[in-house]
């Protein structure tokens, strides 16, 4: 059994809050840079502003976006790890509370959905666990803004609707609300599982790096097809028109019931703040 002290988890999470809010992942920056460089027909200066913002945020230690988001954590815990001190839920939330305070990040969580009193700590976080082999803990953080989250959707299709129905649903969701979600977007699609798990699949799809291929050739082709169709919508950066509405579309799947075809689409804005660390 390897022992990990909860103090290390708290400290690493605290640091990660600053890292992800000040620095856009290099795959996202590289993708936008390549679009601006390779396509001279793109006239808008929104993509330029986004790149300028990346530099300012990093240099000045100012958050990329004022919506520093809900702190989501995807944690893989090795079965040979023993955590000493606070339990992992408490540790993560302590790290978030300290990080958001220390690094001047906005606290965007209200304690009750109807009463709407700000908790002033940006906690509680959403924490999801997977249990794996080994003696390490892998922590992935995704700081997710509210505007893009609001553009997300879930539907229980029936099996006969198939890929065509899924595509139609995803395209319709982006057509309806994509312009409000700060495009260019990253589109996470979950297919299968059940009502509860399909949303998490869609969210996990957002953790993939731009340029990475789906391990299934069929789904990789479907991702390309979906991206092409999304970019035909003409929504463009910030919804003002253009052929770059999304930077990537990722699909995650799971087995499901013979009667069901659950589908969820989780929309991510261009400010895709994520990072993984291993303890």
């Amino acid at each position, binding site marked *: 059994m390897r022992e990990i002290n909860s103090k290390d988890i708290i400290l690493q999470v605290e640091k990660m809050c600053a890292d992800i809010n000040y620095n856009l992942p290099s795959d996202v920056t590289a993708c936008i840079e390549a679009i601006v460089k390779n396509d001279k027909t793109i006239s808008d200066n929104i993509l330029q*502003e986004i790149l300028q*913002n990346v530099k*300012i945020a990093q240099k000045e230690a*100012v958050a*990329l*976006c004022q919506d520093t988001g809900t702190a989501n954590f995807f944690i893989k815990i090795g079965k040979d790890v023993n955590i000493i001190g606070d339990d992992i839920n408490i540790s993560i939330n302590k790290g978030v509370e300290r990080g958001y305070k220390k690094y001047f990040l*906005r606290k965007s969580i209200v304690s009750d959905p109807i009463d709407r009193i700000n908790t002033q700590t940006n906690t509680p976080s959403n924490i999801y666990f997977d249990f794996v082999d080994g003696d390490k803990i892998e922590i992935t953080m995704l700081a997710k803004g509210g505007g893009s989250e609001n553009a997300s959707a879930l539907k229980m299709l029936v099996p006969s609707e198939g890929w065509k129905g899924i595509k139609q649903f995803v395209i319709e969701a982006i057509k309806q609300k994509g312009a409000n979600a700060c495009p260019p977007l990253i589109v996470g699609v979950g297919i299968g599982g059940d009502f509860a798990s399909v949303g998490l699949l869609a969210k996990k799809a957002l953790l993939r790096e731009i340029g990475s291929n789906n391990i299934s050739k069929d789904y990789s082709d479907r991702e390309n097809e979906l991206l092409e169709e999304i970019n035909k919508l003409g929504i463009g950066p910030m919804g*003002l*028109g253009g052929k770059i509405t999304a930077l990537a579309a990722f699909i995650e799947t799971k087995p499901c019931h013979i009667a069901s075809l659950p589908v969820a689409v989780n929309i991510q804005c261009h400010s895709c703040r994520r990072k993984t660390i291993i303890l």
Partner: protein
Amino acid sequence: MKITIETLIRNIKDYKIGTKIELSGIIYTARDQAHKRLVSLIDNSKQLPINLQNACIYYCGPCPRSSDKVIGSCGPTTSSRMDIYTPKMLSNGVKLLVGKGNRSKAVVEAIKQNKAIYLLATGGVGALISQKVKKAKLIAFEDLGPEAIYELVVEDFPLTVGIDCFGNNLFDEREKCF
């Protein structure tokens, strides 16, 4: 084009959709909960914490500032969540609205009726926008945290006319193209 809020209001008819401006002047942040409270004060004929006559409202909930800065990251939030409150804000004097994304038909109509204007800021570039803010002061609803009302003095805030005072809408134009 660099312009002050006063000049923009004086010549509001000249600013057509798609026009890019760099705006200077005093603006007030207000988002979901601040709008709810302001409209409730209006409905109950109570004193408001800000003067809405010719006011510029910015849909924004900024990050806290570090001691060496005027303000933290401060980009726009999605305007449509404020649609339900906006006609009343406009009929009570607000002239300039700043945010991101499309608005409802009722808001477009109210903008036209009140000869107001809706300006678009780029979402997700709050660090860049924070450099255009020269002063920031807490005005009201401190208990709302990021949703409090702040008075900001901005210089050359980059914006695009989204809905002009005739009710033309930049988002409709985009739909016609595709």
